[in-house]
């Protein structure tokens, strides 16, 4: 039996559904992330595990015990908030010791545990500081220690890093993961940052509009997205309109050229599908695999360690982006030159034919506009 179980959990707010059909079984010591855009229900789900919201239906079990309707102060669940939520009137030590204090632990016990936790979060000797004397990153580490002090069965983190600077974010993320491994604590981590979710988690739950889109290991989520939403939300992706030529042979017509997918296609011959290809799965030249496409170079953008090249495949709006590692010894493709690119059939994912056609610009182009 799994350690943390959510079964058929549903939450409605005044008639609108925030979360539905939420099933999850997390093993003891597992690090699970809820990933999705704002308003997808990930935080609501987390708050139901903490007990701040009551599910409209379904049940939540921790270590086999039914906690669905148990008030938050009777659950043994630690929570770290996006805004730290440290008590401003207490020192760091008092903040960390608060949970033990209200549980009636002895002064010595509290003191010893607080000392250990301060070591754990690399803030030894800072116990007498007040929260306003600490940086954001330090405050969030204290908040983590405070949540761990009650030795919770499950640790919940609600976008804990999103208020911090990019560099601190990355450093702290590694610290959180290290501490979590060290303590072997079952952890649920809510984030809208795919990089965070992918790099931290044992498993990622991708959510959209209150529903689970896909649950899987980071590599599976990234490499084998099962829905168009997951494909476009996680990582950078080319999404192209195509038509099935031969479903059993996996042949597809794309911008007047033909390519092959990794296997048979469920959609029938002649039906419209969306083809997803990761930019990093495509190579310049013909050495990258059986599929070859030819196009005109529209744009070359330098993104640091990689170079992104955008091709126009048909002289109309169909564009394809590909990433190559930045190699100072190589010359980037010239704009307006005609090049051939190649990729293996496995790199080409055919997504269930969606009723809505892809947006006029593909996801990559839109993402570049953001850059």
């Amino acid at each position: 039996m799994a350690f943390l179980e959510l079964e058929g959990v549903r939450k409605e707010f005044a008639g609108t559904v925030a979360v539905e059909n939420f099933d999850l079984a997390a093993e003891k010591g597992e690090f699970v992330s809820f990933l999705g855009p704002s308003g997808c229900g990930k935080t609501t789900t987390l708050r139901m595990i903490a007990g701040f919201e009551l599910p409209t239906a379904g049940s939540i079990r921790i270590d086999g015990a039914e906690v669905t309707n148990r008030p938050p102060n009777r659950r043994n669940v630690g929570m770290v908030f996006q805004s730290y939520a440290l008590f401003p009137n207490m020192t760091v030590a008092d903040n960390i010791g608060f949970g033990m204090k209200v549980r009636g632990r002895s002064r010595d016990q509290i003191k010893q545990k607080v000392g250990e936790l301060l070591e754990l979060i690399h803030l030894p000797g800072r116990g007498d500081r007040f929260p306003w004397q600490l940086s954001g990153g330090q405050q969030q580490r204290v908040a983590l220690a405070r949540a761990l002090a009650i030795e919770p069965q499950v640790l919940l983190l609600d976008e804990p890093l999103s208020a911090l600077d990019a560099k601190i974010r990355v450093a702290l993320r590694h610290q959180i993961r290290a501490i979590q491994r060290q303590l072997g604590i079952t952890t649920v981590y809510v984030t809208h940052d795919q990089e965070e979710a992918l790099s931290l988690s044992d498993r990622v739950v991708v959510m959209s509009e209150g529903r689970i889109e896909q649950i899987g290991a980071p590599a599976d989520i990234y490499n084998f997205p099962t829905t168009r939403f997951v494909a476009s939300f996680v990582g950078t992706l080319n999404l192209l309109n195509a038509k099935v030529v031969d479903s059993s042979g996996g042949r597809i017509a794309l911008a007047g050229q033909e390519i092959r997918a990794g296997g048979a296609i469920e959609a029938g011959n002649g039906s419209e599908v969306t083809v997803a290809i990761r930019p990093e799965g495509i190579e310049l030249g013909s050495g990258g695999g059986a599929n070859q496409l030819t196009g005109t170079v529209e744009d070359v953008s330098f993104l640091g360690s990689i170079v992104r090249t955008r091709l126009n495949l048909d002289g109309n709006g169909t564009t394809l982006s590909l990433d190559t590692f930045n190699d100072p010894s190589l010359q980037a493709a010239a704009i307006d030159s005609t090049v051939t690119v190649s990729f293996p059939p496995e790199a080409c994912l055919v997504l269930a034919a969606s009723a809505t056609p892809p947006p006029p610009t593909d996801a990559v182009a839109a993402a570049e506009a953001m850059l």
Partner: protein
Amino acid sequence: MSGGSQSGPFGPMGVMENEPSLNAKRAGGDAARAGRRERRSFGAWWAWVIFILGALYFILPLVGVFFHSIRTRPDIFLAYRQVFADPAFLRGLGYSFTAGVITVVVSLLIIVPTAYWVRLRVPRLRPVVEFVTLMPFVIPPVVLAFGLIRIYSQGPVRLAASDTGLNVMLIGAYVVLSFPYMYRAVDTGLAAIDVRTLTEAAQSLGSGWGRILARVIFPNLRTSLLSGAFLTLAIVIGEYTIAQVLARNMAFAPYLSLLGRNQPYQPAAVSLISFGLTWLAMILIAFLGRGSRARVQVAGAR
């Protein structure tokens, strides 16, 4: 090649986050509030007890005043009739209202440019100006008024010798009294708009200082200025001590004080009218401040 998508947090995320997230966030926020674990009950019992006690304390004196004002028999509105027929009442109200309006205008003309200038050009003098504007809080009005009398009844400027001079002193003292909340109202108003950028934008378009103040800064401060103005007006109309010391006995509060000693029912009627005027001023402030998160200003006791 797998490093490709590590192009960072600015990836396709940005696209997803833009439009839908705004609505979603708002909906989520409201929903979260509505769905809190707390029982959405009719309120706690102790809250009702406290509230009703408070409401009684608030309302009873008003009821008392009202009943007292209609005790006249057989004509229960006699007191009101007498008050409105009394030229002293209208003169008192008119005098104090006029004094209030002049005070507001002078106060604005001094405080707005000063607060603006302090913010823009001499921020290091801000503590000094702030301290000066707070001084009226600690100086007893009677001392202020009496000091004025003594200073201007001798020496080169003998304001105390003439009626006009006394009126000037009255306005001067009231303007000083209005400084604490006028300055705060204007300063918070300036904090809310980006003075520097607005000024620079105006300057880059070729505006002079006077024009910037009149056309750019004043309109943007309208809400905070008006609430400060109404508060000042309410205070000046009710002010007693300074008016009394400066022998402005025609002003509203001295008139009411005298009435309270000599007449049985009219003072109740006038008190109620005065309460209504305060209420009106506060409603206007609340009305002007709606939507903005302007802090409530309090003038304090007299």
